[in-house]
């Protein structure tokens, strides 16, 4: 799946840290612009931790992030993407935190990959302060402070604005306008009163940032076990979470009377307002006798599985090709528009190769040529990625090409959605 947002990538941070000479980050004494901010910072600083993921043998730092105490018994909340290596390569990695200048090992208790959360414990930690997730209701424009370790430069606080829940998102996210930087991942965002608003998770362009709201944090704390589960169970947990998300978001797709759009004589399914973000455009290649009308929808954002693999839930695109073309030339035009390259992530260890099948099927007066390709996420049970691409000449000098990508979904979702998707495309009356 194409990357949609810039995650607060711990690996990136580690690279940036290498570029910074020790001492270059030496700073003058703090300039207090707002006594309220300074007070919140002083009060909550003992709750916020610097997390370091190390390679077990060499003790080399492979990534850093932030976390915070959420319970009095020392449970730490952070982002899943900060500690993802512990799930996929548990023998080779360890997560540690610095307390009183001393590195202490932590253990991974629970993860919520879909919401990008993780709970750490261990190390007989005694919190200096605790930020428990409690429901808060904020108006847009409320000042929110984000804490963390930006670019490993030490604990910092930044000021920003709460801008409500993100629309068209498959998982709940809060829109935060403020300068969140790599390394602050997993740190808390709080009100001026010191209440937890959410967890720093991602940025997207200039000062556009996202927080995980406190509800899934509370839910994960609730179900986190006291002893660390094996990595295999954690990976199965990711598969379950993705499966639940897919069933919740996708099973109602492409049903009769679902949302549709009309594209030059073809009625095609489009996305619902709440889950999908849709785009449209018309291409007119100057050297061709046809033009291409495009309509695409995707679930905004992807679920990070590992640093090299993401699951994007669903994306679909329709392209209607039309022009003054003979039937044979229309077939050529469709072949030209159909041919493309789709980038996928994942390494050979994480995913199998794609297996494909070609078919001819007729649905609602359209004779489709289809290619269905599926691959499996190797270490997560019943988790697949599927691409259905289909092309059909229409009744009059136009044809339609469509593609449906399902990513990180159970097999049964592919089975039920593939035929329903094709059946939902028809010649408009």
């Amino acid at each position, binding site marked *: 799946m194409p990357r949609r947002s810039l995650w607060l990538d711990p690996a990136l941070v580690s690279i940036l840290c290498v570029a910074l000479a020790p001492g270059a980050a030496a700073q003058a004494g703090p300039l207090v612009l707002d006594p309220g901010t300074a007070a919140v910072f002083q009060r909550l600083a003992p709750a916020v931790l610097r997390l370091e993921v190390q390679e077990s043998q060499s003790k080399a730092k492979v990534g850093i992030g932030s976390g915070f105490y959420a319970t009095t018994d020392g449970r730490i909340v952070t982002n899943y993407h900060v500690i993802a290596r512990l799930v996929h390569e548990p023998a080779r990695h360890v997560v540690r935190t610095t307390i009183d200048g001393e590195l202490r090992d932590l253990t991974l208790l629970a993860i919520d990959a879909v919401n990008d959360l993780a709970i750490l414990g261990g190390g007989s930690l005694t919190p200096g302060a605790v930020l428990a997730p409690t429901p808060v209701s904020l108006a847009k424009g409320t000042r929110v402070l984000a804490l963390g370790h930006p670019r490993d430069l030490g604990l910092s606080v930044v000021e920003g604005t709460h801008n409500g829940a993100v629309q068209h998102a498959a998982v709940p996210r809060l829109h935060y306008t403020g300068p969140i930087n790599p390394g602050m991942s997993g740190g808390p965002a709080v009100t001026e009163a010191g209440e937890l608003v959410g967890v720093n998770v991602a940025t997207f362009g200039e000062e556009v940032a996202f927080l995980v709201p406190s509800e899934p944090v509370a839910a994960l704390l609730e179900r986190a076990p006291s002893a660390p589960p094996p990595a295999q169970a954690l990976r199965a947990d990711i598969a379950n979470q993705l499966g639940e998300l897919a069933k919740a978001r996708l099973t109602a797709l492409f049903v009769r009377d679902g949302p549709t759009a009309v594209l030059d004589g073809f009625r095609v399914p489009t996305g619902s307002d709440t889950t999908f973000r849709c785009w449209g455009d018309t291409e007119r290649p*100057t*050297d*061709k*006798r*046809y033009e291409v009308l495009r309509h695409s929808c995707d679930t905004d954002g992807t679920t990070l599985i590992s640093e090299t693999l993401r699951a994007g839930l669903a994306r679909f695109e329709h392209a209607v090709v039309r*022009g003054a073309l003979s039937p*044979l*030339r*229309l*077939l*050529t*035009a*469709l*072949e030209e528009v159909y*041919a*493309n*390259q*789709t*980038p*996928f*992530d*994942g*390494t*050979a*260890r994480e995913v*199998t*190769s*794609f*297996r*494909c*099948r*070609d*078919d*001819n*099927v*007729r*649905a609602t007066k359209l*004779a*489709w*040529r289809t*290619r*269905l*390709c*599926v*691959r*499996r996420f*190797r*270490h997560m049970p019943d988790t697949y990625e599927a*691409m259905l*691409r289909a*092309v059909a*000449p229409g009744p009059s000098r136009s044809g339609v090409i469509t593609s449906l990508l399902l990513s990180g979904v159970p*097999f049964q979702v592919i*089975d*039920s959605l*593939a*035929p*329903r998707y*094709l*059946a939902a495309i028809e010649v408009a009356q």
Partner: protein
Amino acid sequence: MTWLELLDERGGVIGRRPADALPCTVGHEAANALVSRAPGVEGRHAELSLGEGGAILVRDLGTVGGIRLAPDGPRLDSATLALGHELFIGAARLRLAPGQPGGVSTSGRPAPVAALVAWSERPGVKIAAPLVLLFAGTVMGWTLSADEDPLTAGLAVGAAVLVAEAMWAGGWALVNRIRYGQARFGQHFAVGVVSSAAALLLGEAANWAEFLKPSSGLAAVVSFASLTLIWLVALRLHLRVMVPEGTLRGRRLTAAFAVLLGGCFAWAPRLADPKFDAQAEYAVELKPISPALVPALTPQSYAEALRSLERELLADRDSLPGR
């Protein structure tokens, strides 16, 4: 049946012809029935005709070297060739050999391959072949192009097939030149056009099979059969141009080689690892087909294919070391 055989200076047979297909000429020009570029062989060197009592009369056509009974023998204006005997024409040798079964069609009609090769010797054919190819390629490209300017696209296709055919014929001509001292480019080009036409027709049959029964046993079998036939036609034609009269052994070898090539070209893409790690490439070949001939979509349309895909995917275990 007896055969007239022309041997090069190293003793290799470079031409064969039924002994009763007379009169004919021998020389280094391609227009001769028996052609040799061996030293001392002139353009039209000698004429062979049926003499009295079934003997073969060899008559010099005014050359410097004439005809000799031995390499250092006296120059003769004419001589009679008998079974088991040899005559020297320059450094080349002409002999009368006993027939081999199946060497050439004995039905009285020339074999199709031999007839095509004889046809390709005509000067008009050699000139027309590139023009016909350019025209056919251009028409095909123009018919199928969705470009704003289909004529230019068609000409590009015509030029491309012309260049491809010239390279193919050039390869054969090079081998011909090295082995037998004469390129015969024009003839290779002409028979190349014929084999290309066969490739187009048979290839299209395989494309239809692949389109109607994708990834099935039928598509594989039709691909194999058509590719073998294409190679058989191409090899037979070009080899016959190289050695105008092929032998039975040559035929069997050619057929075996065609089967091998057909198998490789048909199955290699099917056996290739379908893996694409970072990039999935999509291409499709569409055919004009009536929707009535296509099976209707049902909720179970993909069920069987998906079960089969799932089995394959589950069987693909992680065999990678060092996790």
